[in-house]
């Protein structure tokens, strides 16, 4: 199936979304392919990149100038300490407990639910001592699409290397390592 080439008008409308990474895979591919062949759209994309760089530099510079080193000391100085006797605290606790079963009941229920959930999660996770491929390999592949006949992904534990191998005009396995 031959895809219709994107026009400049369509591409320019989508460039801001492309730049923000908000296009779906097909649209992103179409815009990318168009911009590799259209100087005007490529220039527009470069301009957007430059604007972002300038804004990013400005914001980073402004944040760097803020002195946070005395922030907590300032807060700490404004905090006071209130001394309450143990008898007063005990009476307050007991009185609150008597009056508010409606509050403490759900709290106990929540604690029980947390314990139950923890148990369920613990029993769902099988123990293992073997590192999985994502720990061994340096690379995780989140999505992969291709127009060629066959694509093979190899995560080699020995060399800790990830290889994406494309086989286009050869029989399956012909040149695959």
């Amino acid at each position, binding site marked *: 199936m031959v895809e219709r080439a994107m026009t400049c008008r369509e591409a320019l409308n989508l460039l801001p979304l492309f730049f923000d990474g908000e296009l779906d895979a097909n649209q992103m591919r179409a815009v990318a392919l168009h911009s590799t062949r259209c100087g005007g759209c490529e220039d527009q994309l470069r301009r957007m990149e430059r604007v*972002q760089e300038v804004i990013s530099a400005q914001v980073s510079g402004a944040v760097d100038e803020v002195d946070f080193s005395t922030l907590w000391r300032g807060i700490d100085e404004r905090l006071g300490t209130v001394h309450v006797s143990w008898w007063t605290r005990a009476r307050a606790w007991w009185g609150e407990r008597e009056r508010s079963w409606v509050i403490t009941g759900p709290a106990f229920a929540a604690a029980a639910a947390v314990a139950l959930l923890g148990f369920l999660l613990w029993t769902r996770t099988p123990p293992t001592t073997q590192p999985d491929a994502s720990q061994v390999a340096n690379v995780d592949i989140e999505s992969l699409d291709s127009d060629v006949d066959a694509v093979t992904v190899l995560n080699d534990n020995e060399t800790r290397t990830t*290889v994406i*191998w494309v086989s286009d005009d050869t029989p399956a396995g012909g040149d695959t390592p």
Partner: protein
Amino acid sequence: MNGMSGVALSAFVTVLGLQYVALAAEGSPEVTSSPAANAVEVRIGAVLASNSSQEFDARLAVMHRQFNVLFPYTSYRLVKEEHQRVPWGGKVGFDIPGGRYVMVIPREFKNDRVYMKVMVIEGSRPIIDTSVSLRDHATFLVGGPREHEGVLILSIGADTLH
């Protein structure tokens, strides 16, 4: 009776909420506090691998073991090496042998990993269109496109710039 109904309802809602939080946590990686990376440098190396000789390009010495273990070729020659700095969300392109083109869009730096989109374009079609995450300074390989009497192996890596 009403109190107990309230307790049961609270417990039910709490369990549902916690399960939702747990499932959400499973689906999204935890963000760790990494120093902010202002930009990223994308590295591309194009290696011509073949069985036409026994030549091993000295510039590929650090990858000697990987190539010997992973691929069945006897000759490896670096035909292009390039690196470009790019802001997050920006696009960087590399021309590679055979009229092909590699486009990389670094998305973000999270959990000490670089998330980026990589496209290898041949003619008007993408032979690879992938989204990957890799550790800072790591490299992965894309191989297989035919070139002269051998195949092209691309090494693609990213280094954050602070």
